[in-house]
């Protein structure tokens, strides 16, 4: 295939941008297998840093916290967000615009504002920072994402399917379980997976609402980086990148395939 000069230049440009986006990550992953503690020069392949990671009690504890928080908040946010998306798709009601803004606003305001406002709330009502506050905060920032993803799925949803179910004798609840939910399931799962990645990756909001005994992995990484660059951070980051990558691949496949 012969390409015009302009086309070649365009491809080269795109390649440079991809390089900019991926080279640092590639280097990070590479160095997580480097023997040298100094990072910069390649001295040989090793799994040492991964092994050390799994012997580090604090890291394991943070991993556990991250997973528990992500699972709990994803489940709760998915239930609340899916119900909300269905309700907002189905009904007109007073205050719909207000609810709409309340769901869009968290997506556009700086996370730090949400973080400190939650911190202010928890400290005012004397809830000690810990698992509960982390989970509550993660549910809050996940709900809008799930609503957006599920509503996008509902946009292609034929309203008369619900009417057909009711017409055939299904109560609203049966209609939801037997028709609406199966049809929008890919959207719901995609939303849940995205909420899960958001939760395991969140730094800013967790930073304010995590307690001393409930450090998550990103917070652990944050404090480790402040003490200096170490190969363990590389290894831990690599593992987190892989988890995110897997979850995002599944989620995007579900989201793009409208015909599932």
């Amino acid at each position, binding site marked *: 295939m012969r390409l015009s000069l302009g086309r070649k230049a365009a491809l080269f440009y795109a390649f440079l941008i991809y390089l900019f986006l991926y080279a640092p*990550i590639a280097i*990070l992953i590479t160095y997580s297998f480097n023997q040298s503690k100094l990072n910069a020069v390649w001295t040989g392949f090793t799994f040492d840093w991964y092994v050390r990671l799994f012997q580090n009690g604090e890291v394991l504890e943070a991993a556990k916290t991250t997973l528990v928080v992500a699972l709990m908040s994803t489940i709760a946010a998915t239930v609340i967000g899916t*119900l909300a998306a269905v309700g907002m798709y189905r009904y007109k*009601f007073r205050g719909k615009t207000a*609810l709409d803004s309340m769901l869009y606003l968290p997506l556009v305001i*700086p996370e730090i504002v949400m973080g400190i406002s939650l911190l202010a709330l928890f400290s005012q009502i004397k809830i000690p920072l810990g698992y509960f506050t982390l989970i509550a905060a993660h549910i809050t920032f996940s709900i809008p994402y799930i609503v957006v993803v599920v509503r996008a799925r509902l946009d292609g949803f034929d309203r008369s399917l619900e009417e057909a179910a009711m017409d055939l004798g299904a109560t609203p609840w049966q209609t939801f379980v037997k028709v609406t939910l199966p049809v929008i399931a890919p959207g719901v799962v995609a939303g849940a997976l995205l909420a899960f990645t958001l939760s395991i990756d969140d730094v800013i909001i967790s930073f*304010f609402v995590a307690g001393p005994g409930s450090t998550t992995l990103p917070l652990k990484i944050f404090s480790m*980086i402040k003490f200096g660059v170490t190969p363990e951070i590389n290894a831990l980051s690599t593992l987190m990148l892989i988890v995110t*990558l897997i979850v995002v691949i599944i989620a995007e496949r579900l989201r793009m395939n409208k015909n599932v």
Partner: protein
Amino acid sequence: MKMETLPTTAETGLQSQPKQRQPRDWAKWWTLSPVTLWMTCFFLIPLLLILLVSFFTRSSFGGIEMPLTIENYTRFFDSLYIKILWVSCLLSLATTLLCLVFGYPFAYIIARSPQRYRNILLFLIIIPFWTNSLIRTYAWILLLRTEGVINTLLINAGIFEQPLTLLYNNFAVLVGLVYTMLPFMVLPLYASIEKLDKSYLEAAADLGAKPWQAFWKITFPLTTPGIVAGSLLVFVPSLGLFFIPDLMGGSKSVLIGNLIKNQFLTARDWPFGSAVSIILMALTLLCIVAYMRTTNDKQGKELL
């Protein structure tokens, strides 16, 4: 937020009907009340709370006490703090511009690439969009620090004798911000370029427009919603990303996000921190209103 259901039309009808609650009303209640309750408790009330706190006085123990005051706001307009806001805005603006300048051609190339590659190319943008920005920031620290990859390469290649100071300055912060925020610019740009009907360009060419004229007169104006949405998605979050200045900037790189963070965690001046947050929030809302005015996107749909 009033969540009780609307009076059914039967109730407002001319003939008085027996008031019967439709079963659908319960479904309405069950789908919408959890989200309303949750977002009210954990989003709306906390925001109102910091608005309230911002008018209190800091107590000597780091708590809040009476009297009510606007001193927290007037204090912000001291030269020191207003300068922080100014620098933050400049840095965020620079980030936005750089993302736009690099992102637009890139989004254009992807959107006009052959259909069979397009999804995979797009997917390669979506991955960084979702990956942890802290880890991505860290990757740049690995590259830029004194004993980092770039310096090692340069010295080993004999180009420089001494390592360059690439980290801990505003340049590093800018690199970190652009790197983190670029996908947020590219995705809305891609969306608006991709849905642009090619026949407009063909019509323009047919009417005698040269490619660059067609671009300026057709493509660019029609993709402004994407440009504005992308700019908003880059500008606003970069104001609050405190960890990039924290980790990549020098001790002088105190930006508005760091200021808020420090007021809450270090200085323990919650009223002042709240006031700064409210100012940041107001600035954000101003941007969103401007966005809606320019694009007529009443729902903010383009933003996602």
